[in-house]
């Protein structure tokens, strides 16, 4: 087998690898983007942009680098969205500062969820409903976290990056990551306890 054939074979394997990677990460990526921007269409656009950037610019990277790279791209794409929104809405921000904001009240994480169909779930409908409502509350509290705390918490505990990797993705020190994670955990625990959910 020529070197070129070997090279092509390894590229095809990587394509399969990238497909499986995206399949595994896409739903969490959507939720991360949704927690950050609170808009379903924008969150889907952000995930699509991040996937395309990964595929186009980092095609030659090894498989084990994909999780870190994708998280970095995703977080940067979310920040870009914030920047664009900031410029676009500069004048409305000024006006909205004069009136009480009710954006948090309008936001309902349950809107993005469907009740479990029950085909593979052994819980009864009442338990399922309880769990869906609990998840809705958790997601609402995660959405309400300060952006850096939310980012650190999700990268560290949902995406399972270690402290050093999280720090690299966020562009901050490992100490800052630990502080953000600790504060996010305490804030979430206190918020859930206030709603009668004991951890």
């Amino acid at each position, binding site marked *: 087998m020529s070197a070129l054939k070997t090279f092509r074979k390894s590229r095809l394997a990587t*394509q399969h690898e990238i497909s499986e990677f995206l399949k595994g990460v*896409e739903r969490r990526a959507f939720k991360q983007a949704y927690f950050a921007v609170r808009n379903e269409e924008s969150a*889907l656009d952000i995930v699509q942009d991040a996937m395309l950037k990964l595929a186009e610019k980092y095609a030659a990277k090894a498989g084990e680098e994909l999780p870190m790279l994708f998280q970095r791209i995703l977080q940067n794409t979310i920040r870009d969205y914030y920047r664009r929104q900031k410029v676009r809405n500069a004048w409305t921000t000024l006006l909205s500062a004069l009136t009480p904001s009710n954006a948090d009240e309008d936001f309902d994480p349950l809107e*993005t*969820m469907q009740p479990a169909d029950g085909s593979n779930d052994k819980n009864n409908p009442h338990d399922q409903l309880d769990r869906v409502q609990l998840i809705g509350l958790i*997601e609402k509290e995660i959405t309400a976290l300060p952006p850096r705390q939310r980012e650190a918490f999700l990268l560290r505990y949902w995406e399972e990056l270690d402290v050093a990797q999280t720090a690299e993705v966020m562009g901050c020190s490992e100490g800052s990551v630990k502080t953000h994670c600790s504060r996010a955990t305490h804030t979430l625990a206190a918020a859930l306890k206030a709603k009668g959910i004991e951890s």
Partner: protein
Amino acid sequence: MNEREFASKIKQDLNYGTGHLKSQVTDRLRQSRERALEAFATQTIRENAYAFAGNLGHAPLHFTHSRKWLPLALIPLLLIGVIYWQHETNHEENIDVALLTSDIPLNVLVDKNFQAWLDQSSQQ
């Protein structure tokens, strides 16, 4: 319950939530993934073409390297070409000068009989 255990419970609930996204969302995510894979395939073909052109079937070299060094590799070839062309031009000029300054009349050189005599003499 410590931070890690608490986070682990939250993670379980978040994962449960991602398993029950609306079909419109999962469809859009699938379409995005397919678009990304198409872009990946296009990029791979382009890089393979560069690698093949740069190495002619040998071990792959990243196209950015060949693109950077190819102009430098062409400079010596260009210089050799210029030197060869100048050498050939000078050689022809020297022959012309030698012919014009020799004692033999120019009419002899265009005479076919003289050419035939020259060939015959050289064979003998």
